[in-house]
């Protein structure tokens, strides 16, 4: 039952028989130029290119500008816009209902790094298989411009004055909680966002994407870490990244030998990283932490695939649940027999 909705305007369709229009959501009500809109557009593109069926994707979000954005992509998918900072638990329960679905969670820096830091880290620790996107702008937009926990020290905001605290680095928090996929990107770099999304979707485990997404209304000062101009000037890609779906031959010619590194994902797909300069191995957690620390000291916005380990069992690999989604279990398998109750009664002594 994956019949696409009839769409007379279809010109091109993907392998799922769906057009890009089948992946769209409602028109955005976020500010014009908001980085979040760009991310939503790349989610549409990535899902289309990965031939996902919208009904086989489930979306989750918390509260905030970022968390509103699931409305703006994959309108046919099930979605739950939950509570502020508590989306990971909601997603965990929802995914136990049907673990065959691809889950995409969208959160913000307030939702993840302030009120939701606890649930974020426990979701990571459990390796819940979902794409967890943090649209990170360092500011509370929906309440009109307060500092978030990812705002850098010394940042000045109109009503708030100067931020006296050091920021939380979401990628680093994910790494030290044993995340199995950590990436950072910049909303102004749509191609990289898309390729990272595709790799994240292919990953069988938690995939944390910290996407610096400038807030055009409350936080777009030229000197700020989360602004467009800063991002454009200081973005330092670790590598160019390409996602290659499973069973497609990688044309080695596309990547110069010796300067690429391939990571085979759990489903057989590959992520090909083209080195820019340094020898960087995204499977080395210590190197990843070191790199992030180094980037801090240089004020670099390092983007790319920071860390991946495709071999770690996901949460669902640990549980002995059936291949058929639990929410399709027939009632007769859920209620034990009368004989079982007789036995229970005999045990109650």
């Amino acid at each position, binding site marked *: *039952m994956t019949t696409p909705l009839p769409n007379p305007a279809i010109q091109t369709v993907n392998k799922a028989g769906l057009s890009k229009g089948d992946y769209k959501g409602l028109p955005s009500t976020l500010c014009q130029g908001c980085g979040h809109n760009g991310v939503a557009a790349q989610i549409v593109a990535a899902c289309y290119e990965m031939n996902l069926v919208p009904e086989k994707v489930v979306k989750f979000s918390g509260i905030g500008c970022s968390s509103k954005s699931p409305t703006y992509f994959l309108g046919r998918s099930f979605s739950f*816009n939950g509570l502020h900072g508590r989306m990971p638990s909601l997603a965990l*329960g929802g995914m136990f209902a049907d673990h065959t679905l691809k889950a995409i969670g969208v959160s913000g820096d307030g939702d993840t790094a302030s009120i939701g830091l606890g649930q974020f880290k*426990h979701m990571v620790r459990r390796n819940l298989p979902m794409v967890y996107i943090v649209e990170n702008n360092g500011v509370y937009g929906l309440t009109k411009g307060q500092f978030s926990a990812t705002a850098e020290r010394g940042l000045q905001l109109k009503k708030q004055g100067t931020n006296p605290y050091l920021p939380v680095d979401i990628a680093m928090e994910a790494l030290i909680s044993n995340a199995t996929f950590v990436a950072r990107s910049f909303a102004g770099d749509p191609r990289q966002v898309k390729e990272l999304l595709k790799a994240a979707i292919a990953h069988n485990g938690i995939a944390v994407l910290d996407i610096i997404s400038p807030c055009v209304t409350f936080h777009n000062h030229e000197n700020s870490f989360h602004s467009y101009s800063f991002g454009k000037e200081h973005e330092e890609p670790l590598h160019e990244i390409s996602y290659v779906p499973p069973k497609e031959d990688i044309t080695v010619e596309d990547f110069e030998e010796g300067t690429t590194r391939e990571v085979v994902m759990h489903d057989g797909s590959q992520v090909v990283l083209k080195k820019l300069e340094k020898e960087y191995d995204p499977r080395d957690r210590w190197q990843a932490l070191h790199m992030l620390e180094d980037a801090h000291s240089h004020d670099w916005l390092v983007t790319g695939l920071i860390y991946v380990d495709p071999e770690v069992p996901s949460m669902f690999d640990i549980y002995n649940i059936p291949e058929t989604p639990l929410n399709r279990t027939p*009632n007769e398998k859920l209620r034990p027999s009368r004989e079982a109750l007789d036995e229970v*009664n005999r045990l*109650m*002594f």
Partner: protein
Amino acid sequence: MSKQGLVVNDFCITFSTVNGSGSATANTTLMRALFKMGIPVSSKNIFPSNIQGLPTWYTLRLSKDGYMGRVEQDDIIVAMNPATLHKEVQYLAPGGVFLLPDDFNFENPREDLIIYRMPVKKLVKDAEVPPSLRDYISNMVYVGVLCFLLGIDLDLIHQALDFQFKGRQKPIDQNYQVVEAAYLWSKQNLVKKDPYAAEKMHGTDDCIMTDGNTAGALGSIFGGVQFTGWYPITPATSLAESLIEYLPKYRVDPETGKDTYAVVQSEDELAAIGMAIGAGWGGLRSMTSTSGPGLSLMSEYIGLAYYAEVPVVIWDVQRVGPSTGMPTRTAQGDLTQANFISHGDKNMIILIPGSIQECFEFGWRAFDIAERLQTPVIVLSDLDFGMNMWTSKKFEYPDQPMDRGKVLWEGDMEEFLAKHGGEWGRYRDVDGDGIPWRTLPGNTHPKSGYFARGTSHNEDTGYTEDPEKWEIIFNRIANKFETGKQYLPKAIADESQKAALGIIASGSADPAVQEARDLLIKQGIKTDYLRIRSLPFDTEVEDFLKKHEQLVVLDINRDGQLNQLLTMTYPAYAAKTTSLAHLDGLPLNAKWVETQILSLKEVK
């Protein structure tokens, strides 16, 4: 006393020990033996919030009449804690029995007592157990002495130990040899001077011995629980742990060898309820278990589940609040909290089991109600039910098939669309009962997906700032709770005494009320009785209020919370209602209920 001057199967024994000393094995062994003799027996464990070293009291009540409530005075005290001897001796009824180790320094302040001293150290020293186990096994001495004094067959003790240690010979033997030695010593050295005796009867036919948390967990398993998110908290922990114990026994699919359930211990109660609500939204029979502080933390999420219309079952095994309160003492103090939980207007369904058997029954029934009405259901148990061992009627197999409510899968959606002009909306009231049709994630019908949210939404789940569209949803949900009353367990009225005075109570107040009514009728005071089993209240509650000239509402809390809700719902009857509320962390006792009712002006 019976003809022979004996008090048979109608007395109370309290064991005073230090917690962490292993007395639980000794106490439950005795309880099991008495149960096997056919004597209705119940226990109250009064224990500290501590792992080792503080005083603990465990009371066994034998009641040939089947009374399960707590009693105020002890007939026999086994004093194994030297620090509390002088306190305990005050609790003994006139002519009571005091057992203590022979090496305790104790001067008897009362002349009416019968004292037996037990050579605990010597008997334990003679036993062939490693020194590290001596303290644990020393409690078996009083088991042996009591077997002699009360007339309990040692074979029954052996059976109980066999059950306790699941047939493992070594601990069975180690414990039993101490019991036997103490029994033989008693036979040779003690002269029975007290009147208390245990005699075989048939008071536990068709009965089981268990606690409410085990019952609730098993009821949930027979209700088809598929997902549990939980966080440890006294006194609810053993409910989730019972799920973990029994689910692998009864809920592995024999065809695939796969589990039909998942249990996740969360990082806190916020996550426990979040997980449970996510799973409920996904179509799983989903639950969490907690106590007061956890329920407070779950408040925001429960509001979301109410408004997004997600089925979920929340067990609150109540302890004494507010704040951290008394984790190891019982109360009915979360009733108004549960009823009004979370901000904004809303309705909450509350089930209140009044027996261990009902803990099982509401375990499965809660899922039917939650899924039928697509809303959270809070089951209010308490520590007295949850953690104490009771003689209970056997669990009964559910008398109804599982009700999964209004769910549309792919084929159902096709039929639904054909019937309803090609349209479906998640929150549309197509049947006029306020209950919409829901779809579940994974449904591949292209019209099945929807956007659940806690923000204001229209009937098709879209975000809206249109007040008229909000109001449609608010009022439709209110109607759902009106029509939904038919699915709730009705209050049970006993009007056999045709009395002018009506008692209203709920939950674990029931045993004390039942016993108090028997005490009152012996004095010529008739009472009718209504036991509330669910909220919101339905017509049978109003009928009872209307019918009786005078009403008392019993609560195990400070403020009379059940009375508050009744008078708020039915202000017309408030003037004839008296609140009898009592909170001391202990289960309600019949004597208190009797005294309070006798002291009412009009009752004479």
